[in-house]
C-alpha cells in the first residue's frame, strides 16, 4: 500500500456512479414506458389520402350515416371501404367538374380502385370483428373518436391490447342503445339506469371475452 492508485477526481466519478446508473435506469424505464407506448407512437397518425375526402363535411355537416358507405359493419368483420361506385352515386351529379374529385372520376372510368391509406390498422394476429361490436351497441365513436369533426381522418385511440382489454373487462360504460350506435354525439343520460336496461335486455352479450383466443386464434 503505497499511496493512491487513481487520481483524486476518480472519487467524484465513483460517488456519482450510483446516481448515474440509477438515474440512467430510471430514464430508460420512463422512455420505454411512455415513449414506446402506442399512445405516443400510434395516436395522431393521419396519413394524407389520394382524395381529400372530408368526414367532417359528409358525416358531420351533411349528417350522412356511417353505414351508407361502410355498409358491412353490421354484417362482417370488416367495415368496408366503399368502392368508387358508392361515391359516384352522388358525385355523378354533384360537383362533376371539381378538381379534387378528378381521381374519383378517373377510378370510376377505369375501374381501378382508389388506393386509400389505412388509418386504423390492427396487427394481423388480432381478429377484430366490427359486427360483433356494432350489433351489441358499441358506438363507432368509442374506437374511432369524433370522425365527424375530422377533415382528414386521424387515429384518436391507442388501439393497444391493454386499451382493448380495459373495455372487455368492464364494457358497460362503452355501450349504448342499438339505435344510437352511429350517433357521434350521443351521451348516456343516466348511466346506471342504462346499464340496468342493457343487462336486462342483453344478458350474456355484456360479457366480452378476455381470454387469449377471444381475439387471437
Amino acid at each position: 500500500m503505497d499511496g493512491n492508485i487513481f487520481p483524486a477526481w476518480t472519487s467524484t466519478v465513483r460517488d456519482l456512479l450510483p446516481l448515474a446508473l440509477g438515474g440512467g435506469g430510471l430514464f430508460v424505464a420512463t422512455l420505454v414506458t411512455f415513449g414506446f407506448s402506442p399512445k405516443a407512437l400510434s395516436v395522431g397518425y393521419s396519413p394524407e389520402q389520394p382524395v381529400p375526402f372530408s368526414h367532417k363535411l359528409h358525416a358531420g355537416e351533411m349528417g350522412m350515416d356511417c353505414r351508407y358507405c361502410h355498409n358491412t359493419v353490421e354484417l362482417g368483420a370488416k367495415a368496408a371501404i366503399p368502392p368508387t361506385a358508392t361515391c359516384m352515386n352522388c358525385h355523378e351529379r354533384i360537383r362533376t367538374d371539381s378538381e379534387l374529385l378528378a381521381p374519383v372520376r378517373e377510378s370510376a372510368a377505369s375501374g381501378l380502385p382508389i388506393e386509400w391509406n389505412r388509418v386504423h390498422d390492427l396487427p394481423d394476429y388480432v381478429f377484430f370483428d366490427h359486427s360483433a361490436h356494432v350489433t351489441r351497441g358499441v358506438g363507432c365513436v368509442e374506437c374511432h373518436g369524433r370522425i365527424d369533426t375530422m377533415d382528414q381522418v386521424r387515429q384518436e385511440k391507442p388501439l393497444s391490447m391493454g386499451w382493448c382489454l380495459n373495455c372487455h373487462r368492464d364494457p358497460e360504460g362503452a355501450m349504448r342503445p342499438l339505435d344510437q350506435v352511429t350517433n357521434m354525439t350521443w351521451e348516456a343520460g343516466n348511466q346506471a339506469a342504462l346499464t340496468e336496461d342493457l343487462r336486462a335486455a342483453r344478458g350474456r352479450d355484456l360479457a366480452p371475452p378476455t381470454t387469449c383466443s377471444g381475439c387471437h386464434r
Partner: protein
Amino acid sequence: MSSQYDLQILQEIEDPTIRPKLIMGESTTYASLDNDVIGIIEGFTQKTSIVWYLMIGATLSVLTMLGGIVAYLIATGVGIWGNQSPVFWGWPIVNFVFWVGIAHAGTLISAILFLLKQDWRTSINRFAEAMTIFAVCCAGLFPGIHVGRMWVVYWLFPIPNQMEMWPNFRSPLLWDVFAVGTYATISLLFWYMGLIPDLATIRDRATTKLRQGLYAVFSMGWTGSSRHWHRYEKAYLILAGLATPLVLSVHTVVSFDFAVAQLPGWHTTIFPPYFVAGAIFSGFAMVNTLIIPIRSIFKLQHIVTLRHLEVMNKVILATGSMVGYAYAMEFFIAWYSGNPYERFVFENRAFGNYAWAYWTMVSCNVIFPQLFWIKKIRRSVPAMLCVCILVNVGMWFERFVITVSSLSRDFLPGSWNYFKPTVFDYLTFLGSFGLFFTLFLLFVRFLPMIAISEVKGILYKQNHTGH
C-alpha cells in the same frame, strides 16, 4: 495424480493420535499461500500458458458453435431439436435442470457449511462458487432459447406493458424465473464479496499498471483495516444466512416445474427433497471432477488436500444414498397408490422403451457411489474421479428419464412416441459445456482459485492451538 501430501495424509489417517491438517506443508505461511495462489495468475507466462491457450481455444470454438446454433435456432425455430409431440420438453429442459443442479454445490459449501463452521470449506468454496455461477449461466441459457420466440423472452418477467399481459402467477415456470434469478444474484454477490480481500492482495502485489488498476477497481478500495474486516464479516454472515434457504428453495421450485403438473411420473410430493439431494449430489461430483485435475496442474495439493476430497466423497455418498432412496420410494408409492397410470409409468421406466436410460441412471447414481463406503476407493484420486464423472453422467440421465420417459408415454396410447434427439440437441448440449469451460478458464486465469484470506484464517487457527 497423487502427490507427496496425499501420501502423507494416507499415512497420518491410519494413526488415531494424529488429525491430518487442513492446510499442509511445513513451510506454508501467509506469504507462501499468496505465492501459491496468486502466483498462478502472475506467473502465467511459462508452460501453463500454452496449455491454457490451447484449452481456451478449444472451449471458445465450442462456444462459437453454440452461438451459431442459437442463431440458427432463432432464425428457424425450435423444430431443429427433437422436441416432438408428446415430448415437448426434451433436452433443453433436461440440460437446464442438469446445470441448475450442478449449481447447488457452491452455495451449500459457502453458506451452509459456513454457518456450521466447517473449516474445510475454505479451500474449495471460491472454486465451488465460481462453478455455481457458471453453471447458472448455462442453466439460464436453456429456458431462454427454448421459449421459441427469443425476442420476447422478457415476457418471462412481470413487466408492465401496453398489452396488460402478465405471466401466469400460478405457474411454477414463473416461480422458477424468480427462484433461479434470486439464486444467481445472491451467488454472484456472495462470490464477489468473498473475492474483494483477495483482489486487493493481487492489486497490492501487482507489478504492472494495468493489473494494479483493474484489480483496484474491483477490490473497491479495500484496505484491510479492522473496520473493513468487521463490516465484511458481518455482511458475509448476513449473506450466508440469506443464501442458506436458497440452497433448498431453488431446486424445490425447479422440481415444482414437474411436480405441479398432473402427469404420472412427475406429480409426486417426494420431488422437492429428492431434487435438492440430487442437486447437491451432482454439484459435489462436479466440484470434485474439476478440482482434481486443477489441484494437480497448479500444484495446490497442500491446500486442497486428500482430506478435502474425502469429505466431499462422503457428501456424495450420503446424497447419493438419498437419491437412491427416492428412486425406490417412487416405485413403492406407485405400487402403494394403486393408481394404474402411476404404476404403468414406473413399470415403463424400468422395463419399457427407456429402460436403457433408467438403468444407466441407477448404476451411475446409486450403485457406483456406494463404492465410497470402501476407504481405499474413497481415498484414491483416480477412483474418485471415475465415480464423480459417472455421477455427472448419471444425473444428466436422471433428468432425461424424468422428463422424457414420463412424457413419451402419457395417458393416451395413441399419442405415444419415442423421443429422438437431433444433431442440434447434441451440439447445443456440447455448446453449453463450451460456455461453462470458457468461463471457467477465464476464472482460473484472472481470479484467485482459493479464498486466500479465509485459508489464512484456518492456517492461523491450525498454528495456534492448545489454549
